[in-house]
């Protein structure tokens, strides 16, 4: 098997402007060779624009983009998209409707690359479908063709724009696994853009959180979830709620009792306690159930503790809990805290 030639990617201070609007406003992003990084952000955060700048479809107004150490995009240099050897998987796949699956995959390859096409079809479990046209495929199959087409010419980097957004929930999980398997097998450097935190967590080695045109944090999925560096990025990884507290090094006093801190801190602070971190049996702090919302695998309890706003705990759905029930709650997880400003 031919191996691909993954290269590292380095975006430094990248700025992309549309008129007076800065869609990307000084973004920094480093991706090591063979690493999979997810850019996580809300719509309008500039994540797709950054991706398009890396691919060569947007000019930068400041900063530079290097692939394998060579500058491909800056204010003075702009390697055209077709000479960058950067693969891009489009959100709507952008399969050529007038070409068969095999011809789509072969599009970026030199003539006489039938063996490579066959190998890719086999890897995508698309044997026998090479003669079909894109509209004759299911959504998941179309996505696989789009990925294989981009991988075919051995790009140095593969970019994926919202790769799972057009798939239904069941297919999504399966495709996530498949995509990671294919990327690992090819040893690709990959950047995928998503607004879905579980996609980012499941697929990526590291997550870059993007907000208002900047990368505000880059961390492994576990660190982003357990030890985010700021309140803002804490809200991207999962549901977040903050409680006032006073930190004493390794612990902090909060309305939910004394909690262990994942990073030492002293003084007034805000403590991140995610709904699923709250234990609800015999942990010492009395709380009353205001409402209970059943969600299938788990239930959300809206709880009230005197002196602070209502908050949420996620519990297994089989747990007996009704409005007006009282529990002794607490936190059994080492949690992050952020010093109060000023």
């Amino acid at each position, binding site marked *: 098997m031919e191996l691909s030639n993954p290269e590292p990617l380095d975006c430094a201070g990248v700025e992309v402007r*549309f*008129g007076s*609007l800065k*869609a990307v406003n000084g973004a920094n992003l480093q991706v090591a060779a063979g690493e999979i990084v997810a850019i996580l952000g809300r*719509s*309008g955060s500039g994540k797709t*624009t950054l991706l398009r700048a890396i*691919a*060569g*479809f*947007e*000019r930068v107004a400041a900063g530079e983009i290097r692939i394998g150490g060579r500058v491909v995009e800056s204010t003075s240099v702009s390697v*055209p*998209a*077709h*000479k960058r*050897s*950067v*693969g*891009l998987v*489009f959100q*709507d796949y*952008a*399969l*050529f*409707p*007038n070409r068969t699956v095999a011809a789509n995959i072969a*599009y*970026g390859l030199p003539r006489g690359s039938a063996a490579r096409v066959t190998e890719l079809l086999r890897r995508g479990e698309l044997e026998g479908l090479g003669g079909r046209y894109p509209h004759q495929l299911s959504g998941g199959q179309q996505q696989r063709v789009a990925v294989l*087409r*981009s991988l*075919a*010419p051995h790009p140095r980097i593969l970019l994926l724009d919202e790769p799972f957004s057009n798939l239904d929930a069941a297919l999504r999980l399966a495709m996530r696994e498949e995509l990671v398997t294919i990327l690992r097998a090819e040893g690709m450097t990959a950047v995928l853009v998503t607004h879905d935190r579980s996609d980012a967590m499941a697929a990526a080695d590291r997550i870059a959180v993007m907000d208002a045109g900047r990368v505000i944090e880059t961390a492994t999925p576990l660190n982003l979830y357990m030890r985010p560096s700021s309140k803002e990025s804490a809200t991207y990884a999962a549901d977040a709620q903050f409680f006032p507290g006073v930190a004493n090094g390794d612990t902090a006093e909060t309305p939910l009792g004394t909690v262990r801190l994942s990073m030492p801190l002293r003084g007034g602070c805000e403590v991140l306690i995610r709904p699923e971190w709250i234990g609800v049996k015999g942990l010492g702090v009395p709380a009353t159930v205001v409402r209970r919302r059943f969600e299938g695998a788990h239930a959300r309890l809206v709880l009230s503790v005197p002196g602070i706003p209502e908050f949420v705990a996620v519990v297994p759905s089989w747990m007996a809990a009704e409005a007006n029930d009282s529990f002794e709650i607490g936190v059994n997880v080492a949690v992050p805290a952020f010093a109060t400003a000023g």
Partner: protein
Amino acid sequence: MNWAALRPARKAPAALWLPGLLAVALTFIPVFYLALRSTEDGWSPWSRAFHTSVPQLLQRSLWLAAVVALLCVAVAVPAAWLTTRADIPARRVWSVLLTVPLAIPSYITALAVVAFLGPKGMLQGWLEPLGVDRLPEVYGFWGAAFTLTCAGYPYVYLVVRAALASADTAEEEASRSLGVSPLRTFFAITLPGLVPALAAGILLSVLYTLSDFGAVSLLNYSTFTRDIFIEYQSSFDRTGAAVLGAILGLVTLLILTSELGVRSWLARGRKRRQAAVRLVPLGRWGVLALAFLSIAVSLALVLPVGVLVYWLVNGLRANADFPALAPAVRHSVEMALAGAAITVALAFPVAILSARYGGLLARAAEQAAYVTHALPGLVVALALVFFGIRYATGLYQTVWMLLLAYVILFVPNALSALRGTLVRQPANLEDAAASLGKGPLMAIATVTAPLARPGLAAAFALVFLTIMKELPATLILSPPGYQTLPGLVWSRSTDALYAGAALPALALIAVAAIPVGLLAWKGDIGALES
């Protein structure tokens, strides 16, 4: 957030901007020489024109245009509603029958009207034994209005039908589900939704009437175009023709500018229809509807073709003098094929530039195209005569000058048809090609062009059809002795040799019906809207 609207122009390859530059330059020729020729004797010819003929011409031309527009709307709107929303039998057949008249140019309809109702016409011949020796006057305003309505309403029909077919009936359903009666829903939802299309249709027929030269000339109704032509032919000094041409150009340009505003309004209201339309059952009214459609088709299609066939048969019986048809057919078809090929080849890169790259040149090319679109064919032809006599004597009175005129006149039609095709085609397919290592021209060759093939074919058919029918530029710029079908029809018509005119006219309709039929059959008839 939609960033795409703000995206700056990308650098376009030379293979795209060079044709763009050429298109702008070509458009510049008639505008520039018309301005030059009409002002080189100073402003006194202008002031003379304004003090003599212009007020009356303006009034007559605009009055005719207004009446024709109203009549066209009166025929086209019910016809469009019936063929899209009502349960009339053979709906598709009626649609095709209502669009086929596009193959018949207005001067042939005028010829048929004169040959039917005129002093030496069919009706007169039938009624003479009964003692009727004088029919109501066919020449003049009402004859011209009647003719231009018959020839022009299919254009309005296409615009209104497209609006009705693409209107989202979900809005009407929402209105009904909120407890509003069908009648109130029609007035509150359906009709306002049609207003932009109606406005566009009215402006279209106004421009059509103002640009028309053949029908008003054959029916002796004095408008700008007729007077310009008379002035051009009769007087040695052509400044008068140039001045009138420039004034007419300014008037049509003003009208087209307002049409552009309506178009952007129209585009905003356009939606893709979600569900199948439930057809309105007509019940007993169905008979009336069919009678209406039959009359509409009779006037635009059956009358001209029937009258021409009558005169042809009559002429064959009487051994009339028929012109040699073969060279005219060959010349017209050759010119239409070559003109359509060159026009589409020039318009395609410009359309790509405008649909994909944007930027100053693309905008200039679009604007330039709209300017020529507004100029009547007669005015462009006149400007090219001035250009040819002074600066391109080698080209003047050759087929190349005629081809140049066709290209200048019809690049706008091809451009808007192709631009529509490209805008509907997803742009990121070209980005996908680039990310797979293909340069911009390779991407166009392997992705854009193959996908645009139906649009290219439709644009080619459209331009072929329009060149086949074109009269004023063909008359003025054909080399001496160069026979064309419109030329033959024209010369025999003006001499009232109806049998001799019927043969080339029927031949012209037969050839022009081929692209119309192809477009209607392919469902690409929307391309004709432009």
